[in-house]
């Protein structure tokens, strides 16, 4: 009997790589693997053009040191942290849902319960779900808190999201044509993306996307475009579709059928329905705002194929820093964003525990300053405003 036996009973079927962008050259190059320690891309991004290969290698070493330092100190306290957050989230969920059912007619209770449920959803998606699904807590070897077993409270199935997010987005961060998170196939978010008249609807699309964000992500994760052009095999697409029907259906059942249904007993069914709907709305608006702050505010850069062709580890790190932007603010804000307010640090080290990003942020910022690289950060209102500014500006050619 193995410690992770439950993980091994049903091995995830290997996902067929639908995104092999590498040209057919040598066998090894078709499967780009571990990035080299030496070398440079065909073209270095403008913001990093002043750096020599040696300086990039030096920067790489400094960032590696930050990582290995955390790995050395990672331990009991970190494990306690994530378990505490999971307990908090579960209490909020039960209290919020329970109070809506039992006493949703009382206005004060309704407000408190809806707030608790919205917070539970936000914490689950961001500080727990997003980070567990990145494998940030896999090192504990706890099958209850593991990237291969975690089911999250979100419409898109965990496995589909891991593919588009962990693999594609994090590997090809902001590379036009490779990272489809630039605009999510829906919005024009970079001047280099070709303008078509439909982009005039950019602001409208985004205004509809924000309140239904989890459903937008779920549809995006299906990769319908790849299925239609034949790169995504039909079986894979159908599997993803089935998984989506299951996870999305569970969301609707729980929030809009079962919870109000149970509240029939107290007559608070209407209030319970409105409460779960409001909690979902709050979560979606919040998640949309935080995600849009990650890569879209002014100053974040996008990259071309030449800038990743031949890229070594140091240049990969640089791309993560140039392509991401942070949100400054209180510890509470960082917690409620799942520490995605430390987007730069998250993109450098996507599988370090999120709770450690705050601690390494000053070091990363200092390194950026020393190497003359921009470190994009700002308060929430400024970053959100900047992202929305882009949505409006790029509606026009």
């Amino acid at each position, binding site marked *: *009997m193995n410690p992770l036996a439950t993980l091994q009973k049903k091995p995830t079927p290997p996902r067929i790589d639908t995104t092999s962008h590498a040209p057919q050259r040598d066998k090894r190059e078709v499967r780009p693997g*571990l990035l080299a320690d030496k070398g440079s891309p065909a073209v270095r991004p403008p913001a990093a053009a002043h750096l020599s290969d040696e300086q990039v290698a030096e920067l790489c070493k400094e960032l590696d040191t930050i990582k290995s330092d955390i790995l050395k100190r990672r331990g009991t306290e970190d494990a306690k942290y994530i378990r505490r957050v999971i307990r908090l989230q579960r209490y909020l969920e039960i209290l919020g849902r329970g109070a809506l059912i039992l006493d949703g007619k009382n206005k004060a209770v309704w407000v408190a319960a809806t707030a608790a449920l919205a917070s539970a959803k936000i914490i689950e998606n961001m500080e727990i779900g997003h980070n567990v699904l990145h*494998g940030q807590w896999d090192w504990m070897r706890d099958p209850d808190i593991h990237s291969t077993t975690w*089911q999250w409270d979100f419409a898109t199935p965990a496995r589909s999201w*891991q*593919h588009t997010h*962990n693999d594609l987005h994090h590997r090809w961060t902001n590379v036009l044509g490779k990272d489809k998170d630039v605009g999510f196939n829906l919005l024009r978010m970079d001047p280099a993306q070709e303008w078509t008249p439909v982009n005039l609807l950019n602001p409208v699309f985004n205004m509809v996307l924000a309140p239904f964000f989890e459903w937008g992500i779920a549809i995006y994760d299906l990769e319908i475009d790849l299925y239609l052009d034949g790169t995504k095999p039909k079986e894979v697409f159908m599997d993803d579709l089935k998984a989506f029907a299951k996870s999305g259906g569970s969301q609707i059942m729980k929030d809009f059928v079962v919870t109000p249904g149970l509240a029939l007993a107290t007559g608070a069914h209407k209030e319970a329905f409105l409460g779960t709907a409001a909690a979902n709305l709050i979560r979606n608006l919040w998640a949309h705002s935080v995600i849009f702050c990650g890569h879209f505010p002014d100053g974040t850069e996008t990259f071309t194929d030449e800038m990743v062709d031949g890229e070594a580890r140091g240049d990969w790190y640089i791309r993560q820093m140039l392509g991401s932007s942070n949100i400054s603010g209180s510890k509470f804000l960082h917690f409620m964003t799942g520490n995605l307010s430390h987007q730069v640090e998250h993109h450098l080290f996507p599988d370090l525990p999120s709770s450690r990003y705050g601690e390494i942020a000053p070091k990363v910022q200092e390194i950026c300053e020393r190497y003359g690289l921009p470190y994009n950060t700002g308060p929430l209102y400024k970053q959100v405003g900047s992202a929305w500014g882009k949505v409006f500006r790029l509606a026009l050619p």
Partner: protein
Amino acid sequence: MKRLRPLAQAASIAIHPLGVEELFGLFDPVFSRRQLRGVVTEVVRETPQSATIYFRPGYGWRTHKAGQWARIGVEINGVRHWRSYSISSAPGQHPSVTVTDIGEVSSTLVHNTRVGDVLFLAPAQGEFTLPEEARPLLMMTAGSGITPVMSMIRTLIPHQKTADVVLIHSARTEEDSLFVDELRALSAKFPGLRLIENFTGVGERFDMSTPAQLDAVCPDWRTRAAYVCGPEGFVSDAEALWTRSGTGAAGLTIERFHTELNAGEPGAGGLVTFELSDKEVEADGESTLLEIGEDAGILMPSGCRMGICHSCLTPLRAGQVRDLRTGEVHGEPGELIQTCVSAAAGSVNLGL
């Protein structure tokens, strides 16, 4: 719990993606959907280097048979580690394991376990159990080899008037000898248990190179069902004695302490066995296990190929691997490893 299953399922629709176990788990840590657990109810110090840990297991734990062992998981510095331990209690009581401080996991169990701690469990297993029908028994144990036998003796001696057990137990000294007081009390009270103690620190080792010593203390040993448990040398000596004396090893039930860990060697490479695909490939110490598998035509799960997306996680069944990014050699049986950044460090078995 079984009857409540439909109710539990209905309730879990309201709290998707949680299961009811996770809610109960907020109040009683033995509840979990994925992992059998137990809560420590008592810790009894046996010798300076050993302790018996009693625990209340969660739902899903089946009552063990006397003589069986179970894998126990503990957390050290936030990371879960597993080792196998014989269950020392008699069936029906709270199960317990008696652990001697050898290695990091055992040391943590012996010295740092407190009442209320959570242990992780795998169901009890093993064939080292009492015969179906009552018959005279000979038990030979050395060191902590007494542990599974203790469970048998506790099961048998106080409850069966016809029991006839000869126990030859070897330990280094009296202080090191587990359960010595209880064994003496049992043998004084019940004629069915004859205890022969053998302290190697003060006297000779029990000589099994010829039948002479055994003949002297237990003349009818050839007709008894024999149980031997202890370190490798002790067990193989017994096996040889039974074979040589013509009794044959058939009448002998043995349990060995085995060490599963085979330390990896950085840069060594080795034979990679893909267990489910039934393929073996010789790997160098630099290529990733992902590449090795793909070259052998095995459908390997993979994603980013640079260690960031975790979609290539594969169970390591045996051996150790080297993380190509850091050079660190690591791996325990059952651990999920990232094949895209790991190379073989010696021979490796993968669950693919």
